[in-house]
Structure formats: structure tokens, C-alpha cells
């Protein structure tokens, strides 16, 4: 496992060792920053009574963005889950689209406001439709890979889910199916230590979700989820395996959910502020910025420019989304079945 940034000079140029240019890692950082700043804005909007609900990505951006960069963003199919802000930004969703999603407006590309925020879907981007019952997306991702195999299309199917969700039957059935049929699937668990209020120890008794890989005869790996480069490397390796016909991989990103489960949750009923504060020290957005600064890639000027740009984008997107129309109420009757004309 690659260690996150330390003071050691040896960690310098880690991204170059991975074959990533300075511009690419800056672009990674930009996606992470976007996700973080959008998330922060959503909480403000929620508290201001402008949106009824927030589900948060904070603490998981690094793993998400690193993973997206490890894939082929022109070809691969992805099934991100509700916390995957970083992933969907890196994958091509715009801040405006994200805000339309959170304001549940007609132009929301995921569902035109039918679903709760964070239930991403975007056919144009080969992003599967996500629902609320957890882990149902895992077999879908396997189905994409099976279909691609039948058609002879060389691509990777990627799916994200939480560690609590890894205890659902669908996790097991999907992983087993993919392994038996040696399908090009990457299962990535974003282990943020909690499933709402239930901590890891009450969810599973193995050390790492990736320990489950052996039971499917597939490759498994756990990595530092605060480090986008670790995520990139792990996903890239899994994708390479998949392309070589070596079948699926089960990855675990070790991270921490920095915010309450959602805006409906009060996390202080089941964990302490100290614990959260401790975790904040390893916050991937901060540590990656520090790394980029330490290797001279993120200059003060560039950082300010990025922050300004992101803020501007968010401001505009928020304005746009807030003022955009809801879908026509009569539309609730539409698209139950195919509409033939």
C-alpha cells in the first residue's frame, strides 16, 4: 500500500512515478476541490432552507477522484453511489448539473428531480442509474461487463458502494458471478467506517472488506482512501488486470465520513467530536493539496485561481438551479413504460 504524504523527501514526485503529469494531478485536485466545495455549499443551502436534504461526500473525495482517473473516461461504464461527488465530477458531470440534481429541477440529468439528490445517472456518460436500496448496483455493473464480453467490447465496468452495503446479499452474488465468469468489473468499497450510526465492528468482523476477495477467487486490495494517487494506482492496476482478461477486482478505500450520514442525521448520538477531529487531520483534500504544494505543483496563485474558479462555478450553478423550473407536475405520469409515438 502506498502511504499518504509524509515529510519524507522520498514521497516527492510520487505522481510522476505513476506516470501522471503535473497537469493531471492538478486536474485531480480540482475535482476533489469541486466536490468538497459543492458539498459545503449544499449544507449551507440546506441550513438556509433552500434544499431539504444533503447527502455528503466529505472525506471520500480522494478515493473517488483517484478511481475515476484510473479508468478510461471515454469508454468505461460506471455505477457511482450517492456519495460519489468527486467521482462524478472527474467523470464529466458539471457543477451546474450537480446543483440541478440537488435542487431537483427538470434539467437534472439524473432523474429530472424524481430521485433524491446523489442518485446519479447519466446515460451520455455511461453512468448507470442509481437507486436508494443499497448494493443493487453491483449486479448491474456485472451485467454491463457480461454484455460487453458477449459483444466483444473491451471495457471495464466500475462500481462503488459502502462497507455497510458490502454485507448485503447482492454484494456477494454480484462478486461471485463476476468471478466465475471472469468479467472485467472493479468493485470499489468506500469504507468510511460508518453505516449511518453503525460502526465498522458491528458491520463486519474481518479486517478489510477486500479480505472478501479470496472467497470469490478474485484479486483484492485495500488502500489509503485519503490518497488519490493510491486510489489511482489501485484502480489502474485492477483495470489493467480486467483488460488482460484476469477478471474482477475487489478494492477497499479506507476513509472516514467527515459529516453526518445526511442532513437528517445527528452523528453526535453515536460518535464523538474528538474522533471526527482526529480523522480531519487525514482529510485527503488537505493532505493532497499539501503534497502538491510540497512538490511545487500547486502554487499559491494556481490554488487561488482554482478556488475562485470553483466558487464562481458553484455560485452560478446555484443561481441557475435555484431559478430553474421543476418538471411539469403532469410529468409524474410519464415514462412508466416506453412511450411510442
Amino acid at each position: 500500500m502506498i502511504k499518504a504524504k509524509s515529510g519524507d523527501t522520498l514521497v516527492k514526485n510520487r505522481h510522476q512515478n505513476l506516470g501522471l503529469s503535473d497537469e493531471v494531478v492538478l486536474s485531480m485536485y480540482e475535482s476533489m476541490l469541486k466536490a468538497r466545495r459543492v458539498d459545503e455549499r449544499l449544507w449551507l443551502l440546506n441550513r438556509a432552507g433552500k434544499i431539504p436534504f444533503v447527502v455528503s461526500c466529505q472525506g471520500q473525495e480522494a478515493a473517488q477522484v483517484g478511481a475515476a482517473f484510473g479508468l478510461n473516461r471515454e469508454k468505461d461504464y460506471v455505477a457511482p453511489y450517492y456519495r460519489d461527488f468527486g467521482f462524478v465530477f472527474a467523470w464529466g458531470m458539471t457543477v451546474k448539473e450537480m446543483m440541478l440534481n440537488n435542487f431537483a429541477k427538470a434539467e437534472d440529468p439524473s432523474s429530472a428531480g424524481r430521485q433524491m439528490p446523489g442518485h446519479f445517472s447519466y446515460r451520455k456518460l455511461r453512468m448507470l442509474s442509481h437507486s436508494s436500496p443499497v448494493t443493487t448496483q453491483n449486479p448491474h455493473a456485472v451485467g454491463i461487463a457480461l454484455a460487453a464480453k458477449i459483444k466483444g467490447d473491451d471495457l471495464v465496468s466500475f462500481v462503488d458502494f459502502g462497507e455497510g452495503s458490502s454485507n448485503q446479499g447482492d454484494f456477494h452474488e454480484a462478486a461471485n458471478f463476476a468471478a466465475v465468469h471472469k468479467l472485467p468489473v472493479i468493485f470499489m468499497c468506500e469504507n468510511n467506517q460508518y453505516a449511518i450510526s453503525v460502526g465498522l465492528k458491528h458491520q463486519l468482523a474481518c479486517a478489510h472488506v477486500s479480505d472478501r476477495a479470496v472467497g470469490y477467487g478474485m484479486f483484492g486490495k485495500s488502500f489509503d482512501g485519503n490518497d488519490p494517487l493510491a486510489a489511482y494506482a489501485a484502480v489502474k492496476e485492477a483495470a489493467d488486470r480486467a483488460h488482460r482478461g484476469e477478471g474482477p477486482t475487489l478494492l477497499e478505500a479506507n476513509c472516514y465520513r467527515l459529516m453526518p450520514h445526511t442532513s437528517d442525521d445527528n452523528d453526535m448520538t453515536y460518535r464523538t467530536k474528538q474522533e471526527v477531529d482526529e480523522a480531519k487531520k487525514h482529510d485527503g483534500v488537505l493532505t493532497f493539496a499539501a503534497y502538491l504544494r510540497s512538490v511545487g505543483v500547486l502554487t499559491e496563485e494556481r490554488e487561488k485561481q482554482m478556488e475562485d474558479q470553483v466558487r464562481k462555478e458553484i455560485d452560478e450553478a446555484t443561481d441557475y438551479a435555484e431559478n430553474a423550473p421543476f418538471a411539469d407536475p403532469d410529468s409524474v405520469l410519464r415514462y412508466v413504460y416506453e412511450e411510442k409515438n
Partner: protein
Amino acid sequence: MPVLSYIEAVTQALDEEMSRDENVFVLGEDVGKRGGVFQATKGLYDKYGENRVIDTPLAESAIAGVGIGAAMYGMRPVAEMQFSDFMLPAANQIISEAAKTRYRSNNDWSVPMTIRAPFGGGVHGGLYHSQSMEAIFANVPGLKIVIPSTPYDVKGLLKASIRDNDPVIFFEHKRAYRLIKGEVPVDDYTIPLGKADVKRDGTDVTVITYGLMVHYAMQAADKLAVEGISTHILDLRTVYPLDKEAIIDAARKTGKVLLLTEDTKEGSVISEAAAIIAENCLFDLDAPIRRLAAPDAPAMPYAGPLEQAFMVKPEQVENEIRDLAEF
């Protein structure tokens, strides 16, 4: 008599049953320290400990299936499904196992388990936090499905469900949780399962319904009374198996029947009520049966105006009753 909210009545019933019978225990997602995402099990973890208020892994089939095993051992598990929308992973355990264990073992084994699940719309929950799931199960002999409308009924019916020696699905309306308040006796009482309840006596039009819609009907009845229309309201309370006699009596009472549900229409439990009436008291009717329900679309959207458009509205209830009265 103390006034409790609908959810406080849930908590009180659980608390009293747990203290009354050490075989009663609670299991589910976040029911422990967190007291449930709606706080239905609030305080129980502190009072009864982690052995009897069990935070399970995120796996509904296991929640139901482990509950079944514990029930076979002689316990009375009360399993919480965090949202009724999420009980489908447990459909096989509920329908193939819980419902059939007594029958298939020729009465040797039984499954005295209660499955609590918040259901219903109007809470900005979107497609998967708003559904009515009763119709999926309301064709499975061996199950009982209870849906209370008032805090009083909640307490009496939940206690009866927990003490029942067969599996009961107990759907709680999540919008009613804090919206609906009412008097609840401090003493121990149960309400028999399988019995509908006349919530209002009337002579012109009969409304047969359950859950939150009982309150919509009651409000409409109040308004219509001013216009001189007298509404009879039957609260099904148990939606499977239905209380046939009560349905027949209520239909005969006025000869004009509005069947009301917030579920989507086709295949809902009010369809069965319609069938019972069509079979048994066709010639007592003065008007065709009416059904008022949500549209036959997959589920309730999240966006405010769309949710509004999807849900049955109080005015619709009022209009349907008035129309029937004038028929």
C-alpha cells in the same frame, strides 16, 4: 389521558412489551445507540442493553431471517426495516419462510415475529422513501398486515402484534409519526388483529381506508358535514387478511362506497375490498364503487411539486365523497 404522537405510541408499546416479556427484543439497522433513524426505539438501548436492542449489519434478509430463527427458539423478535421500501431484500424470508413455517411444519413450528416498517409518502422522500408496500405482501396467507392510523391504535395493535403467535408486518406511516397526535391510555391494552374499526358513523357515503388516509377522510367528513353530507368511515387497521364482515357492513350501511389508499391503484388492497363488496353486496349498492389512489406510476418523485401531484390530496377525497353523495 396523556396525548402522544404516533411515534411515541410506537416507542411506548415497544418499551412496555419489552419490560413485560423478556423474550421480546428489537433488531434492525441503527435501532441501538441511534434509537432508529426516526427515533422509534429511542431510549430502549439504554434501558435494555445491546443484547435486546440489536444493531444489525446492513442486511434486511438477515434481519428477517435471523428474526425467524430467534422466533423459532421461542423469542418474540421485533425487527425494524428502516424504510418499508428496503424490505424487499427480505421478501423471500418473509414470504417463503415466516409466512409458511407453521403451515409447512403442520403446526410444529411457528414464527411469532413482528416486522415494523415505516411507509408512506408526503415526506420528501422520493421514490424509495415514500412507497406503500402492503400490496406486495397482501396476498400471502400466513402473514398478517397491520396499519394503524392513530396513536391509540398504534399502541394497542403493536402490542397485539408482538403477542401474536404468527408473523405480523406492522406498517407505520412515517408522515403520521409526528403529525398525528392523540390520547393514549397509560394502561396495558391490546386491539384485536383482523378487525376493522368504524372511525366515524355516517349515513350517506362510506369511506373504507387505512393509514394516513383515515385522517384525510376524517377531515373531509368534517367539512362535508357542514354541507349536510354524513360520512361513514371504516379504518381497515388490518389490511391482510381483510375484515370481510366489517367491509360488507360498512358498504351496506350507505350503499355508496369510496375506497381510498395512497398506494398506486391497480392491485392495491382496496381492490380486494372492492372485490369483496362486488361479491357480497352488489345489490345493496346505490352507486358504482369508487377508488381513489395514487397514479399507476412506479413511485413518488422527490421534487416538491411532483410529490404533490403524485399524492392523493384531501380535496380529492372531499370531492369524491361529495360526488358519491350526489349520485
